[in-house]
């Protein structure tokens, strides 16, 4: 492992000004993300966990420059990405990728799977010919567990789980260093969620990817992460490795969160049935 973290976020704040329709009223400022700091080491999965409106999604959007930050730094391999212009940041987009929550909204309905997956390849000049692109797409589809024959089809022909696999393929095809997964499995049914979680974990390990896993589901977080940061009202209230968070929580909010989860009785037969 390298001695330097892949991503280091220092005192990041993202504020929104809510505009009122009449132009004379004062604008109110919402501190969606309020002075947070964390780091992600190479090959590590850090989860950002919290309830709706705590600002966790804004963190992800700020780090992918979909939302403008207000104050702070985000050093990616030592280089601050936040003050960059979109044009300066474009080459780095290959290395910092995002998986979105809603598999039904994150694919352009008018493009075929092939068109969707080829786009980043051509933008980042990873391939020089159409044939090479198709070869790449075939390989990546196989990796995410889809058949290469689906390339010519449109998103509406697929189920939620399949679409999320396509979304993952779009991210993995450019071989990123850092993947930001924003509630990547929340919209999926339990049985499909398990498949996709397995896929994400496998791809992450095989490729040594660092990941910021944003989620509200503590079970999923325990399953996937190495370390966990708990967010509450725009601030990170506790960061620790996952065993400390789950077995020895320090902050009262973390304790409250853990206590609120409905527990499923464990049943040994359930775990052994398919093995």
């Amino acid at each position, binding site marked *: 492992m390298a001695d330097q973290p892949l991503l280091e976020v220092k005192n990041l704040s993202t504020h929104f000004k809510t505009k009122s329709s009449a132009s004379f009223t004062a604008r109110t400022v919402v501190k969606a993300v309020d002075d947070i700091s964390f780091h992600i080491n190479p090959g590590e999965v850090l989860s950002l966990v919290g309830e709706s409106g705590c600002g966790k999604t804004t963190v992800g959007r700020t780090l992918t420059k979909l939302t403008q930050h207000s104050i702070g730094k985000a050093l990616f391999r030592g280089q601050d990405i936040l003050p960059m212009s979109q044009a300066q940041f474009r080459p780095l987009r290959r290395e910092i990728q995002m998986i979105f929550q809603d598999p039904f909204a994150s694919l352009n309905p008018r493009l075929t799977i092939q068109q969707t997956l080829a786009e980043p390849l051509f933008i980042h000049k990873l391939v020089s010919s159409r044939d090479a692109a198709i070869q790449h797409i075939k390989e990546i589809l196989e990796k995410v567990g889809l058949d290469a024959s689906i390339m010519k089809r449109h998103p509406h022909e697929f189920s939620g789980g399949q679409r999320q696999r396509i979304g993952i393929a779009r991210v993995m095809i450019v071989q990123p260093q850092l993947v930001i997964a924003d509630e990547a499995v929340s919209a999926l049914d339990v049985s499909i969620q398990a498949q996709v*979680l397995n896929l994400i974990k496998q791809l992450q390990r095989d490729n040594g990817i660092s990941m910021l896993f944003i989620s509200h589901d503590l079970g999923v977080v325990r399953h996937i992460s190495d370390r966990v940061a708990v967010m509450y009202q725009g601030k990170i209230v506790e960061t620790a490795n996952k065993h400390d968070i789950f077995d020895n929580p320090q902050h009262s909010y973390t304790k409250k969160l853990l206590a*609120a989860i409905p527990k499923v*009785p464990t049943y040994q037969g359930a775990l052994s049935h398919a093995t």
Partner: protein
Amino acid sequence: MQCGTALILGLKTILQVCSVALLELDNLNIAVASKDKLLPVVHDCSLSLAEHETLGIVGESGCGKSLTALAIMGLLEGSQVKITSGSIVFDGQNLLEMKPSRRRLIMGDRMAMIFQEPMTSLNPVYRIGDQIIEVIRQHRRISNQGAKQRALELLELVKIPQPEDRINSFPHQLSGGQRQRVMIAIAMACDPALLIADEPTTALDVTVQKEVLDLMLDLQQRTGTSIILISHDLGVIAETCNEVAVMYRGRIIEKARTRQLFSHMAHPYTRGLLASIPSVVTDTDWLEAIPGRVPTIDEQLSGCAFHPRCAHTKTSCSQTEPPLIEVQEHHAVRCHFAGEI
């Protein structure tokens, strides 16, 4: 000895009479009209619910659990979804043979429902007080003032802070959790015998979810209402219900007392579902996911609905549909090999 047996038999009869079913679904079939044909979405659903009981219906999206609830409540009328056969007996009356005007006397009074989306389930243009009063005055001969008094009590009952102020609030001025509390107040307004809760906490955060579920159980303790809780979350069901029915593709595939179910899961789907959930208390490295996906409703399947995804499929599974058989008292499973695997 003889005497003792007779006594036990007698007691059993008395108990059976006492716990007479409040709600009884018998071979309910529901289909959705699509183009020229009817696609079955709920298949031979039989359920019974005694008074003061909490029944959980669990399953993934599209399994027919919400449609079953809407059918019981009588909210399918005027939609593309039709009840094709079967009966729903509530309080000894078959709801499906009732005239709509008679049925409306039960809706909101003896039977009430809360829905998944607290953000959109209240009418945005009326004050929450008026929305509670509306249901009270629909079913009770009571003055506006009296109904308002009752609405205040209800708001207090569902633990809304400062009910005197809140009664004049519009829905958009409340948080999601508070709106769901208001929905519960509307549902409980006429002391229903049956409360149907369709994914009542799915849209809420876990901490709020806990508060809302606790509130529902607390109200059940006080009023003795029966609850049907529909959820995709096995954890929610395990913590709140006495009985569970697991649905898959429109069929009840396993039905048991909650404790029984979690100690002796008999259907491969139920087991797979449980194995798919990553635990918060133990570390998991790999999830035993059920392979494949839920077939869409227009896909024709012969035999057991689960056989394409099942690890134990044998030839008979794809040929004949298994019936729901009791493997133990109070524990029924729809699987050819329920006892063996």
